[in-house]
């Protein structure tokens, strides 16, 4: 089985988010970038599915040269090889389009993405890839089991879950539960240095969206503390003041 895993390079989860240039640019100063946590889950499942010579896992990232540390981490975790499409990832459409071009010429049985990237939270790349390649896509999956020609996946729905079978090839966006993230071991780290990382130039594509500015949420007021033995007061406040119950 040939699996393609899309990975993105995102600010570490502990990052305090700030902006510069009159709130038009994300402030990358002092920010550590990591492999998107959901992509780590996708990658880990891909490695499990191909374990013991049952296939290959290619990771692909649309990004500038600065993302190579993240790509090497994916190789250290166990990907077979890597592709970097040498461009700034403008938006989900741009990323999906570039990846689709690559996937069209190098056919894959399964394409995995994380359910979303933790920077822009779009959860769009999987669905766009499905449409661009004219294959099924399924978003936010919690479980993925593969058989010969098809996979069984569990998808989250409001208040429950749905179980589907999907023939290969298809695209899926993975969430927690699909696999435990794998930690690179020494051998992985050493071999990552010599695994193939191909750099491909992007194709031209028009873009459909532009981020104009950012805002941070309005600060909250002071907390109103209620004594632990006066719970009735809290209920009153929630009813009469906050009007939420």
């Amino acid at each position, binding site marked *: 089985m040939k699996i393609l895993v899309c990975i993105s390079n995102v600010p570490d989860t502990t990052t305090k988010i700030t902006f510069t240039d009159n709130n038009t640019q994300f402030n990358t100063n002092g920010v550590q970038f990591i492999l998107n946590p959901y992509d780590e889950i996708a990658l880990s499942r891909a490695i499990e599915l191909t374990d013991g010579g049952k296939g290959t896992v290619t990771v692909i990232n649309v990004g500038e040269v600065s993302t190579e540390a993240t790509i090497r981490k994916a190789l250290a975790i166990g990907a077979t090889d890597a592709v970097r499409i040498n461009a700034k990832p403008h938006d989900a459409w741009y990323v999906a389009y570039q990846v689709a071009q690559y996937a069209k010429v190098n056919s894959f049985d399964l394409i995995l993405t994380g359910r979303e990237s933790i920077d822009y939270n779009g959860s769009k790349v999987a669905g766009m890839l499905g449409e661009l390649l004219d294959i099924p*896509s399924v978003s936010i999956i919690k479980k993925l089991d593969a058989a010969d020609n098809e996979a069984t996946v569990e998808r989250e729905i409001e208040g429950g879950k749905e179980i589907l079978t999907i023939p290969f090839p298809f695209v899926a966006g993975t969430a927690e539960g699909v696999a435990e993230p794998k930690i690179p071991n020494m051998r992985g780290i050493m071999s990552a240095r010599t695994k193939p990382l191909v750099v491909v130039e992007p194709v031209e594509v028009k873009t459909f969206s532009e981020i104009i500015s950012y805002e941070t949420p309005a600060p909250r007021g002071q*907390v*109103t503390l209620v004594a632990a*033995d006066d719970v009735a007061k809290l209920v009153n406040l929630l009813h009469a003041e906050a009007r939420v*119950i």
Partner: protein
Amino acid sequence: MSVLIYAENAGGTFKKSVFEAVSYAKAIADQNNTDLVAISIGDVDAAGLASLGKYGAKKVLNVSGDKLKNFINQAYASIIAEAAKKEGADVVVLSNTFSGRGLAPRLGVKLEAGVADGAVALPEQNDGKFRVKKTAFSGKAFAVVELTSANKVIALIPNSYKVVETGGIAQVEDFAAATKQSDFKAIIKEIVRAADKVSLPDAEIVVSAGRGLKGPENWGMIEELANLLGAATACSKPVSDAGWRPHSEHVGQTGIAVSPNLYIAIGISGAIQHLAGISSSKVIVVINKDPEAPFFKVADYGIVGDAFEVVPQLIATVKEYKASA
């Protein structure tokens, strides 16, 4: 030109998030002096369909049929795109639900439309520009996205726009859209819905608990409180990682993002990754025995105390309050 809203049903009924999305789409139609058309796919009865008129839909396209009873991403996207073309809709609105998030990107490609997912406010339209505010960095910020394409797709976050009744009556029309055989490759084997549970992403009240609860056996009081309040239950990441609660309850940066009217956090420290997913809650109540817990910094109301003493009291008081109301 018109605005098209995809009204998603859950087992044949529309939920509040649909009425929010219809109200939101109606406001966009008004901004553009045009009409709002709704499309429903699946098994909704006539009264349900007509009810969309109350929130401003002038017409409802009804698509039904055995093959379309349940949500099939590819087929639904084909149908909605065809309806958008037929109606000349240049803006398509849907709810930012689990299904909506699978559908919006496919629609974006089909309609060559910019997609604003996670929208939290009405678009700002000036000098032909179309700008939508959306959540970013897992709720730690918002981004204003300009959609530069002629067609636009917007996915609205539940609980971020109010339901507005305009009182009209919608005319319901059957709509037959062509679907391809290849749209039905994915096959639904089973749908499991916990019948009596409030779904977390669109819950108005969420009762959430963390590692402070010590073990899964102590969740009875959390569920009891949630039941009393008509709330959904949630948890922090270590709790679901430990298997005390299902992953589907884990909220935060790497879990579900929620925006309820009331979020009650019990025995949760308030780590930055947890706060990321809950910061757009309107009112936050924190119960924690550590007065220095970071969660108190973002809380509206707080009790410094032991959850095992405070929560049973809270249950008793809410019961009294419900009985007297």
